[in-house]
Structure formats: C-alpha cells, structure tokens
C-alpha cells in the first residue's frame, strides 16, 4: 500500500475544504474504486449525516450503498462486522460516540477480536466512524470523546484527525486497512454552519487520493522550549496558546498525535528530548486515559529528558450542559497556556 504523502497536485490545488468535505471526498473516491465499500448509519442517507459526514453520497451511490439503518447500534454494527468478515469493506457510523455502549459487544468482542478468535481465518476490514466532542452544550451523553476507551481495548486502530488535509489521507488509509479502524471526527472541526469551526481545520486539500500512514504524529508547530502533545480539536487550542506565548518568548512545539493506535511514541520522545518540558492536552477524562499514557511512555523511555510535566484534561465528571460549566471543564487555550507556564516555572 502506498504510504507516501504525495506532492500536492492536480487541478485546483489552492482549493480549501472543510474537514467534513475532505472526509466525504475520500469515502466517495474509495466507493468509486471498490464496489465492496458501503456506508451505513443513522441519518447518513437522506440527511447526509447530522454532522455532514456523508453529505452528497446518497445522490451518487444510491440506497444500496448509503444506508439509513434502524436505531439499533447492536444490529447494524454487527451487520458491518459480518459483512467485513465476508469480504466487504463497510463503514458504519455511530451518530454520537456516546452511543457506543449500546453496541459495545459488537465493537470490543466482535469487531476487535474476531481476527484473533478465528485464528486468522477471517479479518474485519471495516471502519467505525463516530462524531466526538463537546463545546456546544449538548450535555453529558452527547459530548464525550472517549478517546481513551477505544485506545485501551486492543484490536482496533484509532484515528483522530484535526485538519481537512489529515482527515482525507487518514480516511483513505482507514478504508484500505485490512483491520478494523475506529475513526473519530470532532464535531467542532467539521465546518458546519451552526457549529462554527476554529481557524485551522479548513486546509488546502489535493483532489487526488493520498494516504497518511497510521502511527505518524505530525508536528503542527515547531518550538524549542515546551512540547504540547494533543489531538483533535485541542490541536487548534494548543496552537492558539502557543501563539499567545510566543510574545513572551516561550517557544512551544505542538505535536498532533493523529492516531492513538498505533501511537507514534518516537516523535513525542524526540520532541521532549529537545524541550525537556511536556504538557499533554486531552478532551477526554483525565484518569486512566491519553494524558497518563503519553506521560508514561515518555517516562519509560526518556525519564532523564523530562524536567517537568503537566496534563490538561476533563476532570473526572460528566460534561455539564450549562455553557459556563461546560466551558469550565473542557480545556481551553488559557488552561493550556497556564499549564505551559507551570512546566516552565523553574526556568
């Protein structure tokens, strides 16, 4: 499989796309190339996905390949696992990642384990897409990211794009992968009218196909003083924090993990070896999650490099509905700025 990021080429190279359009472009490309690729989920056909994840696909591919399903996550995720084992390449969408619990056996006991349980007689080349994240007052059951939950359970690759360019390349890779991939897209990054994205996720996107390999973190901003490791929406919040600190002479490097499984430990360690100061920022719950894992990986292989460390995550509470309360628990650029100043406080 081609794993190279190509030169940006083709017509309209100065075209920018929202993250949702970049995802849809990759899906449409794969569907044209391979009749075995199909998409199913709640409101993915006529509605085009409530976060625009399938906008326009029904018109091109019809109802046999873009399928609205009854509201049973168990039934349709199970159907996708079966279709994948039979040789198809399904994409099944969880409308909100928070609904994973309803179909959890299909996810962590079937999707993630059937390759192993069958002794390699079947594999499960499917993609489970899901909308994640808060910041728009949708309360505790519609605002989680659950990054750590999926990354914890073995057998699934876990992808979290932060820009349109990354989203397209990672989606191509996800559909072509012969193992199950969980592709978590942040609602706030999609570029929807009623849920405006920050500056940053809308990027130039080549019309041609390209893949971004899994396990390849991307340094979104180079810096010498502090390493911020993060993913998804918080890449953009970290970049905002980095810009505000540049005026004070603090040079911040921002590492976008892009995939949690596989995890690019090497890029993180190299950055910390350079800066000595680590801040890990996550929109998931703090305990037993991404922040703890990243810090542990750095400590295991490079404890001597680590002068100071901080983590910024959602305190271990359900995400509140009320705007000021949600804003309080979901990390913002100021929280990241403060953590960066704290790790630098002994300088």
């Amino acid at each position: 499989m081609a794993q190279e990021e190509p030169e940006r080429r083709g017509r309209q190279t100065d075209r920018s796309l929202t993250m949702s359009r970049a995802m849809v472009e990759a899906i449409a490309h794969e569907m044209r190339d391979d009749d075995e690729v199909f998409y199913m989920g709640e409101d993915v056909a006529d509605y085009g996905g409530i976060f625009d994840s399938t906008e326009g696909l029904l018109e091109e591919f019809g109802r046999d390949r873009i399928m609205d399903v009854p509201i049973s996550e168990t039934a349709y995720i199970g159907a996708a696992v079966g279709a994948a084992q039979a040789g198809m390449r399904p994409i099944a969408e969880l409308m909100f990642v928070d609904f994973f619990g309803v179909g959890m056996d299909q996810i962590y006991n079937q999707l993630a384990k059937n390759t192993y349980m069958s002794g390699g007689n079947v594999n499960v080349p499917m993609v489970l897409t899901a909308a994640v994240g808060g910041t728009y007052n949708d309360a505790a059951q519609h605002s989680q990211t659950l990054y750590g939950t999926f990354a914890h359970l073995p057998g699934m690759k876990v992808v979290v794009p932060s820009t349109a360019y990354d989203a397209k390349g990672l989606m191509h890779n996800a559909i072509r992968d012969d193992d199950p991939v969980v592709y978590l897209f942040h609602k706030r990054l999609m570029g929807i009218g009623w849920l405006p994205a920050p500056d940053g996720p809308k990027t130039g996107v080549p019309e041609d196909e390209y893949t971004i390999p899994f396990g390849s973190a991307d340094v979104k901003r180079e810096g010498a003083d502090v390493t911020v490791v993060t993913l998804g929406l918080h890449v953009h919040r970290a970049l905002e924090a980095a810009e505000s600190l540049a005026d004070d002479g603090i040079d911040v490097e921002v590492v976008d993990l892009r995939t949690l499984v596989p995890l690019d430990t090497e890029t993180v360690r190299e950055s910390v070896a350079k800066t000595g100061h680590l801040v890990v920022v996550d929109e998931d719950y703090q305990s037993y999650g991404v922040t703890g894992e990243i810090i542990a990986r750095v400590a295991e292989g490079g404890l001597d490099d680590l002068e100071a460390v901080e983590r910024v995550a959602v305190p271990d509470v359900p995400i509140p509905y009320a705007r000021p309360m949600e804003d309080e628990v979901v990390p913002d650029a100021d929280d990241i700025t403060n953590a960066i100043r704290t790790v630098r406080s002994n300088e």
Partner: protein
Amino acid sequence: MSANDERVAVDTADVWPDDADEDEGVVVNWFLSDGSRVEEGDALCEYQVEKVSVDVPAPVTGTLDELVLEEDDEFERGDVLAWIRPE
C-alpha cells in the same frame, strides 16, 4: 469602476433554496481565495438560509477577482458574493 463591466458577479440569488421563506442568509465557508483560478461549476463557497446549506458554483471560468462577502457575513437575497474575471 470600468473593470466591473468585464467582471461577472456571483449572485446569491442564483442558487437560493426554492422552499426558503427567508430573504437573508449567512456565508459559512469559502473554499477558494482571491486570485484563485476557477472553472465554471466549481464550488466557490457555501452559504446558509434557514439552516439549509447551499453550495455556490462558479458561473464562468476565470479568476476569482474579489470576495465581497466574508465568512460569517450576513446578506440579503440578490447581494453579490464575489466577482470573477472571465478568461
């Protein structure tokens, strides 16, 4: 400005949703910037009327000469979104 005689307007009314009662919209996303080359039919931008999103195609092939309305700008039906200098 005489240059306007040659330029083609991208008119918000051209793709107004049929079933919208409202005469006001908001620009959601631009996909191209000033000076970009466009072909007739390329999606230039997206605007929203009554929660319905509409893609605005380039009316002619040419160069995107001037963006009149920015992202998040509100406008009335028939306002000019941009000017294209045809080839």
